[in-house]
């Protein structure tokens, strides 16, 4: 591991710039729906937390699968207990945490005088987004871990950044699609 500015930059910067371009893609999705987001502040409040939680679900699963893989506990079969159990936990986390996020987003915008949407609507948007994002996080993480394993790469190095940023971007896309569907 290099500890010079030049050495660190050489490994970090190329990946960083590619990921930045990908994130600008999700920014453009947000920008396209800017007027809707500005009209309903509760939705704007949901943006960072949805992106963050989607990325976290992916990185939690990636870290756990990677560790199980290194310990020789993981087999890539849908019936594998480690794989299925961790996937189930991610689904459970999404289903329980996202309604609370929706309630929090609605409550915070109501307190600051900007809640233009009903509480049920915001909770429903958060919950549906969470369920869809959990499924996406599970599929993306399982596929990325499997590909890293087949290519002989250490899943710790590649899977977490790929999964976190993919889930970030899809977090915005899913949130906007659910908003269009519900509102």
């Amino acid at each position, binding site marked *: *591991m290099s500890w010079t*500015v030049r050495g660190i930059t050489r490994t970090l910067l190329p990946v960083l710039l590619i990921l930045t371009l990908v994130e600008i893609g999700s920014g453009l999705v947000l*920008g396209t729906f800017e007027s809707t987001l500005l009209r309903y502040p509760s939705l704007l409040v949901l943006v960072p937390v949805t992106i*963050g939680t989607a990325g976290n679900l992916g990185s*939690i699963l990636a870290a756990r699968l990677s560790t199980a893989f290194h310990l020789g506990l993981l087999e890539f079969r849908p019936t594998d207990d480690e794989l299925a159990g961790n996937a189930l936990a991610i689904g459970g986390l999404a289903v329980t945490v996202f309604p609370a996020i929706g309630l929090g987003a609605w409550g915070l915008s109501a307190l600051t005088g900007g809640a233009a949407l009903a509480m049920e609507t915001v909770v429903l948007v958060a919950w549906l987004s969470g369920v869809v994002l959990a499924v996406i996080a599970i599929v993306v993480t399982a596929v990325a871990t499997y590909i890293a394993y087949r290519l002989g790469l250490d899943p710790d190095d590649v899977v977490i950044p790929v999964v976190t940023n993919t889930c970030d971007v899809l977090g915005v896309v899913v949130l906007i699609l659910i908003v269009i569907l519900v509102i």
Partner: protein
Amino acid sequence: MALREVAARAYREALPALAASAAGGLIAGLVLGGMRTELRIVPGLLVLVPALLATRGNVYGSFGARLATGLHQGIIEPRLDLGDTRVRSAVAAALANGLIASAFAATAAYAALVGLGFRVAPLGTLIAIALVAGILSGLALIVAVVTVVFIGYRRGGNPDTLVGPIVTTTGDVFGIAFLLLAVRIVVGGG
């Protein structure tokens, strides 16, 4: 049943960090929700938000992971010593890469918005906002990551498990709060 056990343990272990990070995300969202005036004054700013937040996570997540590895290997000491060239290089590299990525994000967002025919603030304004926000949130995150990782390590914690939650929680809050401050510094008003 093994499946249930695996799922229950994973759920229990992940919930606290996920909930803490969600609370941080909601605070960041509250600031973003209060930034509607700034978002209208600086068209294109919203397009930058995911890229700037992700840059904080990627740069300072990697910075924290590097410190954790250095501590594990015993090649850096868990105390604040600005004479330590390894820590100094890691700090300088994190700041420099964060700033390069921020300016790059502003330029890419500007080019995309112009190309798509959207209304967008001048390129100089977007770059200035991205750089000011990058410096302020970078300094805050360096202090947060170094403090938590070093103190956590000295108290017998595993620095690897501290980095993720710290960076995701503080990264979003600092990222958005300093973005708001940067807009006010660059554009004025507020």
